[in-house]
Every structure is written in C-alpha cells, then in structure tokens.
C-alpha cells in the first residue's frame, strides 16, 4: 500500500481540477484511499489523512468517517497527532454524536499533561464543543487550571469556564473562589479573559452581579492605568494601549453600573476622562469612545455626562467613516427613547443620512427619523420621508409607507394634509403598502366628512391612468362607491372640480373588474362599489344591473356570491336596496381590534362597525380592563374576568376583555360577536355543574346579610348573596344599583376584579340607565368561584354619564359577610 499523499499534494491536485465534476472525482478517489488507510489502522499516516479529510470537509464534502480517527489521534502520545486530532474533533464532532463522549477521558488526561500546549489544546476543545455532561465531569479540572500561575493556561481556562457556565449554569458557584485574584493579574491576556468571565457571570445571575459590584474601584483603577500609562509596545494598537481590554472593561462597568447609583458615581470620572482624552483619528479610538457612550447612556450617569455622550454621537454622525456613522445611528436609536430632546438636536444630520448610498445606514436613518417625528417637525420631516420613499430601494418601501401612515395619523396638522400625504404614498409606493393599511385608510377617509368630495376626486384621477397598484385601487374603488354622487356632481371646495359622467365612472370600475392585474380582493371592492352606485347614480342603473348579472356566473366564488346577492337585491328586494346601500356612518376608531372588517360585507348585512359593539360608555374595552389592571398591579390580585374561556386565543383583545360578558348561561341569544357565543360548551364545568341544570335560586342558603358595597355621589350599589348547596365554592352575588339624585345616570358600566385565587363571571346587566330618584335599579349577576375558601375581596370600577359629564370611580369592597365565602 503506497504511502498516502501529503496534504500539499492533495491540495495541488485539487487545484488543477478545471470543473466541479473533476474536483469531485479526485476527492472521491482520495476519500477511498483514506478510508482504506484508516481500515489498516496505520498510526504513522493517520495524522496526514485526517488533515486531508479536514481540507475536503472545508470544501464541502462529507467527512464523518474520520470522526473516530480523530479520537484515536487525540489518544496518541505525539503532540502532532493531538494537535490535528483536536482540530478534527472541533470541526467534525459535536454533542449530537455519541462519539464525542469518548473524548472525555482523553481530555481529562490531557488537562493534567506536563506540556502546557497539550493542556491548552484540551482546554480549547472543551471550551469549543464540550457538551453538558463533559463540562460537568471536567469542571473541576478547569477550575484548578483557573488558579494556576501559568498565564497561557489561565486565560484559556477562563474562557473554558465561560463555556462551562453557559452549558451548565448551576456550576457557576464553583468558579467563584477562583475569581478572587483574577483581576490582580499583570498579563493582559488573562485580564481580558477574566473580564469576559466576570461579565458572563454577572449577566447570568443577579446575585453574582451584586457580589461583583465591589470590584468597580479595581476596574476603574485598571482602566486608568491603561489610559495614563505611556507607550507600551506590546499592547499598543495605533497609539492606544490595549483597546480591546479597555472596551471589555467598559462593557463590564456598564453591566455593573446599571441601576446602581453608587457604582455609577464611582465610574463618572473615569468615563468623562476616557470620553475626552481618547484620540479619535483612528478606528480604535472610536471603538473605545463608542463603548464609553453606550456605558454612559446605560448607567445612572449625571446629565452633563449624558449630554457629552450624545454630542460625541453627533460628532460621529459627521465622520467620514461609514462604519462610525452606522454605529452612531444604531446607538442614537437606542437612546432616542430616553433622551429625546438631545437627539432632536441632531435631526438634520440624521435626515441627511437618508440620502446616503449605503443601505445599512439608510435603514438606520429611516428608523431613527420615524422615532424623531413629532408635532413640531411633522411637515418638514414628512417632506423628507416622502422624498425618501420615492427614491429608496423596494425592500424599504413597505416599512417606510407604514411608518409614514403612523406618523401622519399621530401628528397630522390638518385633515387635508393628512389625506394629501396618504394619496402621495399610495401613488408612489402603492403596491408596497401593507394590506392592513387599506381598511385604516378607508376609516380615516370616512371620518373626514368635509373632505369626501376632494378625496374621491383625487382618487379618481389617480386610478384613471394606472390601476395596477392594488391598495390604491382598493381604496379608490371603495371611495368611488361611497361618494360617487359627489364625484359626478362636479362640486369640490378644495380644488378645481372635474367633470365626470356616470358612464366614465362605471367605465373605470369595470376595467378594474376585467383587468388581469386586479387581485380577487380588488375585484370584490370594485363590484361592491358598482352596486352601491346603483342608488347614487340615476341614469345608468340598467348598465349596473347588466354588469352585476354577468358576474353571477363568474368562476371566482366570492364574486359570484356577491353578484348573485346583488341580483337578488335588484329583483326581489328592490324596496330595500336604497336603505341597504346608504352612505356609511362615521366609524368609531376601535384601535384595539386592529382593522375592523369593513368592506368584506355582503350587500345585506349591516356595516361592520356595529358588529363589534363598542361598549356604551365610549372608551375601548381593553383600555377599561387596563385601568383595572393598573389598579391591581401592585397586589397579587389579577382581574380574572373570563366571561368566556375563549377557544380562540388569537381573537382581538377587545372581545376577550369585554367585561360586559355577553354569555348568558341559559343560552339566550346575544348580540355578542360570534366567537364569544361559540365556547358556551367549553365553560368551566364546575360553574355549570352547580347551576345549569337547576334554576338559579333553588338551593339558596338563606340568611346571608346583604351589604352596601358602594355609596357615593348618589349612586348606591348593594350586594345580595346566594350560595349554591350543590357547589359550595360558588357564590352568586346580585348587585343592585340605584340612583338617588335628580338626574338619570346613563351608560352605566359595572366592572369587577378579584384576587387570583378566585374566578369571576359577570352576566349581562338589566340595563344601562339608572333612573333618578330611586325609581328603578339596574341588576346584574356576578358569580364568584372560590375553591380555596379564601376571604372574598373585590375591586369595582364604575363608569357612567351623569349631568352631562362622564364619571368614573374605583372602590374596594372588603365588607363581605363571612357566610358569603366560608
């Protein structure tokens, strides 16, 4: 068997291959040779073969058959063998193969080897790919080496310890004693890795963090020495003494100083010193400055220092080096939340960065610009952002468009401006606008009543030439359908009215319907719009009828359904047509539920906003619950108000938290949204067991005194109690609200929250008006489940309108009689 070729030969041969196929052939031949050589158990050439195998592995060819050979090499006595064997183990093996456990013994022996380089190899391998079992076995050895005086081994042991801690966090305490002297080292390599080890420990465990805070003075001293000491050739990088160590120490200081006043104070001086003394002409200086800035922003530094930091970042922004600018933008993004005003000062520079050639910088600048938009600078910023939207790469357009919409919504100075901005976005980046933007826009347009004529005119003009951008066409179609009468009336206050005939409008809508570029959804919009125009247009009703009937046999099921139903409207239900296709009312902005389903309605059902039934008091359901949550945040009480354990966890938060829970146990139909009614079956059985089969008041434990839970401002709420005999953990409370003032209280809403150990269910109230002069009451039933028989406590929140103003009150009810919960 001829001796296997050397690595160099192999590489040379492979490089002569001219095609991929040739290369593959050579490699396969060599692999076969290597495999037979392995089979022969040849000790002398094994290292050479494994080296070749690793080369082929790097090129992408399979090399797993060499794994065992690596182990054999590790077990050998020669340093050469060990070296290549460990390298092979690190490249080819991982903890998923069982083979790697065989290494444990070898590594253990090598950790105690007489040659430091062998020990180094073992530490390196363990630190790279040691599994948790290996780490557990060998942690003791590593800890021993952490205390050795040999700096070469000490630094490796420190990093190996980091890996062990990552794999087996419980072993962290084991390394604690060894860390005592780590910072006393002179050798920078050991210092560096020790700081890494300390950083890792502090990040993982708050106890360690507290323990290591006492090291802050020492760290500050080391940093000071680094800065002050003169030129030291071995650690010098472009004139700065060991910048890597400086950066590491700054990072550790950041972690130690976070949220801690004393440490932060101890660091203030040195940070100021570093910030002012570091030379910024080279990248190393900037790296240190950058780290300093991050540290200053993160700890509890004094305001002067913070201003200094932001100014440094501002200077970075003007630097020629792209990397520095990128890094500055990233950190400004992080600080804009906390130090908004300071960052605002650099707004113009940031906006200039939008025009940079570099994609990464542009993205950062865009995000930062959106964060900086406020009421004062909205007009200027929007101009820049719209210009950016025009010229930026496609990957940005969607994000930019969404950002612009959000900013416009929050800070629009006038409705006209808002609509203009939206139009501009739709026309420039129409196809990149996200789908959920369309309903939001439609709602916005509906709400700006005086702009309807202007809006529909502009939209009409926009799609006249080009109807390929789907979101634009959808919005336009909807608007034309709604406000078509305004369009043909030729009246418009805001701009020059255009003369459009009914036929022209129908032309454009029909072309959208026919066009290949229109998505199915867009066609739906279009058809509905045409239908709506049948009540708004006078002369073209027959044409509309024809169009609608054609689509009654469309292949698209959605269109077909719509067309058929609209046809029915024309024929059988013609008397209802005008009422159904009336102008939409101004919609409530239901922010919690995201976009309400406005347009996917059939012609007959009511406009969707009524379906979601915003609570009568006006504010959104989730904000009500949030208020309660805020109240109860401190204590252990959580508002457990599962009126329905919804089987649809993804449903909009508003419905889940709707405290006026529409579930009626007796199964009466409610007006609640569909998902709420479905899980009646899946209600907690214990609540049902006691109560569903029997009428509510049969098993009453009489004699529980009722209490007045609330009595203020003329509103009195009484609680009466019933206990169920069949289920002793359930208490049924009937509340009665009465009003002794001379004016009615309207839109009355009662909400309740109980501690975590209870469960609460609110049934529908009898009404929402509490009549004056105690002439009537509102009754509502609350069921409380108290399995642990704990003392009943409740917090209640009342909202109502009285004497023309909205009132709101919170109260705690603690005077529950013991019979109600024992």
């Amino acid at each position, binding site marked *: 068997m001829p001796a296997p070729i*050397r690595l160099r030969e192999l590489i040379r041969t492979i490089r002569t291959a001219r095609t991929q196929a040739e290369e593959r052939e050579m490699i396969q031949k060599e692999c076969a040779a290597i495999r037979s050589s392995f089979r022969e158990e040849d000790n002398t050439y094994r290292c050479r073969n494994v080296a070749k195998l*690793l080369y082929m*592995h790097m090129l992408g060819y399979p090399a797993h058959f060499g794994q065992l050979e690596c182990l054999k090499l590790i077990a050998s006595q020669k340093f050469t063998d060990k070296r*290549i064997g460990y*390298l092979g183990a690190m490249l080819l093996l991982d903890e998923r193969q069982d083979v790697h456990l065989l290494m444990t013994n070898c590594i253990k022996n090598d950790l105690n080897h007489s040659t430091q380089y062998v020990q180094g190899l073992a530490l390196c391998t363990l630190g790279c790919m040691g599994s948790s079992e290996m780490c557990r076995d060998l942690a003791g050895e590593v800890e021993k080496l952490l205390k050795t005086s040999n700096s070469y081994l000490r*630094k490796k042991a420190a990093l190996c310890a980091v890996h062990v801690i990552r794999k087996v966090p419980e072993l962290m305490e084991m390394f604690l004693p060894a860390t005592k002297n780590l910072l006393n080292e002179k050798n920078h390599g050991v210092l560096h*890795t020790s700081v890494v080890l300390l950083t890792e420990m502090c990040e993982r465990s708050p106890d360690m963090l507290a323990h290591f805070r006492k090291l802050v003075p020492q760290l500050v001293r080391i940093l000071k020495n680094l800065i002050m000491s003169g030129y030291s050739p071995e650690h010098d*990088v472009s004139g700065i003494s060991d910048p890597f160590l400086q950066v590491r120490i700054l*990072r550790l200081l950041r972690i130690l100083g976070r949220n801690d006043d004393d440490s932060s104070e101890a660091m203030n001086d040195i940070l100021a010193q570093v910030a002012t003394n570091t030379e910024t002409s080279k990248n190393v200086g900037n*790296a240190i400055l950058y780290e300093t800035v991050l540290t200053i922003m993160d700890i509890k530094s004094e305001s002067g220092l913070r201003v200094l930091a932001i100014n440094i970042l501002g200077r970075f922004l003007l630097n020629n080096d792209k990397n520095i600018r990128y890094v500055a933008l990233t950190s400004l993004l992080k600080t804009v939340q906390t130090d908004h005003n300071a960052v605002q000062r650099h707004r113009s520079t940031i906006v200039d960065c939008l025009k940079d050639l570099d994609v990464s910088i542009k993205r950062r600048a865009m995000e930062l610009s959106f964060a900086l938009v406020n009421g004062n600078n909205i007009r200027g910023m929007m101009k820049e952002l719209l210009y950016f939207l025009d010229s930026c790469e496609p990957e940005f357009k969607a994000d930019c468009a969404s950002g612009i919409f959000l900013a416009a919504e929050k800070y629009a100075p006038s409705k006209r401006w808002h609509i203009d901005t939206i139009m501009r976005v739709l026309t420039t980046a129409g196809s990149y606008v996200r789908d959920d933007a369309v309903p939001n826009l439609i709602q916005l347009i509906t709400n700006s009543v005086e702009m309807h004529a202007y809006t529909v005119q502009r939209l009409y003009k926009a799609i006249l030439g080009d109807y390929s951008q789907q979101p634009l066409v959808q919005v336009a179609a909807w608007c034309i359908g709604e406000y078509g009468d305004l369009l043909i009336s030729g009246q418009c206050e805001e701009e020059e009215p255009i003369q459009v005939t009914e036929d022209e409008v129908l032309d454009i809508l029909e072309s959208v319907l026919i066009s290949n570029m229109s998505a199915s959804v867009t066609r739906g919009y279009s058809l509905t719009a045409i239908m709506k125009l049948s009540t708004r247009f006078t002369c073209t009703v027959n044409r509309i009828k024809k169009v609608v009937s054609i689509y009654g046999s469309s292949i698209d099921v959605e269109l077909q359904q719509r067309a058929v139903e609209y046809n029915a409207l024309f024929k059988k239900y013609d008397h209802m047509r005008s009422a159904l296709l009336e102008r939409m009312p101004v919609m409530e902005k239901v922010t919690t539920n995201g976009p309400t389903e406005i347009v996917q309605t059939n012609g007959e059902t009511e406009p969707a906003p009524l379906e979601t039934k915003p609570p009568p008091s006006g504010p959104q359901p989730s904000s009500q619950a949030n208020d309660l949550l805020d109240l109860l945040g401190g204590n252990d009480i959580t508002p457990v108000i599962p009126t329905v354990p919804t089987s649809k966890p993804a449903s909009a938060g508003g419905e889940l938290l709707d405290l006026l829970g529409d579930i009626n146990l007796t199964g009466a139909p409610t007006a609640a949204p569909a998902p709420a009614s479905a899980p009646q079956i899946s209600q907690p059985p214990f609540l049902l067991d006691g109560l569903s089969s029997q009428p509510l008041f049969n098993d009453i434990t009489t004699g529980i005194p009722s209490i007045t839970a609330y009595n203020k401002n003329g509103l009195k709420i009484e609680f009466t109690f019933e206990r169920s005999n069949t289920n002793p953990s359930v208490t049924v409370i009937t509340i009665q609200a009465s009003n002794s003032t001379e004016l009615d209280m309207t839109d009355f809403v009662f909400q309740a929250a109980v501690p975590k150990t209870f469960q609460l269910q609110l049934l529908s109230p009898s009404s929402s008006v509490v009549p004056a002069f105690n002439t009537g009451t509102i009754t509502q039933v609350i069921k409380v489940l108290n399995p642990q028989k704990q003392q009943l406590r409740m917090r209640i929140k009342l909202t109502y309108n009285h004497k023309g103003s909205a009132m709101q009150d919170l109260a705690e009810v603690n005077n529950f009689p013991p019979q109600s919960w024992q």
Partner: protein
Amino acid sequence: MIQAILVFNNHGKPRLVRFYQRFPEEIQQQIVRETFHLVLKRDDNICNFLEGGSLIGGSDYKLIYRHYATLYFVFCVDSSESELGILDLIQVFVETLDKCFENVCELDLIFHMDKVHYILQEVVMGGMVLETNMNEIVAQIEAQNRLEKSEGGLSAAPARAVSAVKNINLPEMPRSINIGDLNIKVPNLSQLV
C-alpha cells in the same frame, strides 16, 4: 459571542471555515455561499456591517467583514461584541497571519489550512476573544510549531527516511561482509525501495 469566522476569496471559494455553533454540513456550506453573495454585492466605500442573512441566526446577528486583496474575512457576531472592536480584531488576526507566514498571501492560506486554524485558535476560543497581543500569539505558535517539528511534523518522519533511502545509489550491495572473524549478513534492502 462570535458565531462563525469565514474566509473566502473573490470567487467564493472557502479558505477558512470555522463555526462556533453547531450547524449541519449542508447548512454550513449554504451559509458560506449566502454570505459570499451578500458580501460581494457591497461596494468598497460602504460600511462593513451587514445585517446577516436568514440562515445564520435571528435578528441579533451581524456580519462584520473586511476585504483584503483577494480575500474576504467575515465574522458573524451577536450584539455582545463591539462592532468596531471586531473590525480591529480582524486586523489583528490578519497581521498575525502576516507575521507567521511572512507576507501572507492567499496561497499560504490554501496550502496551510491547518496552520491557519491553529493561529485562529490562539486568537478566538469558543467564540470569544482569547488574546489580542500579536507578539504573544506569534510566540506561542512558534513554540508549538517547534514542538511539532521535533516529533517529525505532519508529514511524519518515515516519509523522509524512505525517500532518503530511495535516493541512495546502490548499484551493488554485498550480501555479506567478512572482516576477520566478523561475519555480517547484509539484509536485502530492496523491499524498502
């Protein structure tokens, strides 16, 4: 933490591939290819930071690269590393290679892949920076190389011995040498040739 270190040339051929987190082989190659394409698109006066491709990890990871002559040095790091610091680290690594190989060029990396790995091992261990002092690293590498050489090196001493014997011109070998009382039988060396 550094997740991967890749070195490849202007055509995408890998010269050094080191992952500090486990990926199956096909994914590794895919990552190399994807990284190459991402980096190739970059102009030379653009910043050296790239938000990484989809394969190599979530949004926390960045690619930091530097272009030296025909080679790209790419470090894939997460947010715990300072970006500017890594740029300096790449510089230190390349300068160390320069010191070890005397004016390093791509060919050196090609033919001495194992040595490059050993040098890298002294700089980065387990995804974390171990040593940044160039002289220190070079000294340690040279000590280990000496140790290896004393054992005969990777090529293994027998090879040299064999070739040495091959080159001995032995036109005729006496089969036995008789010197006085001594009778030495000369073994047949032809098997070794």
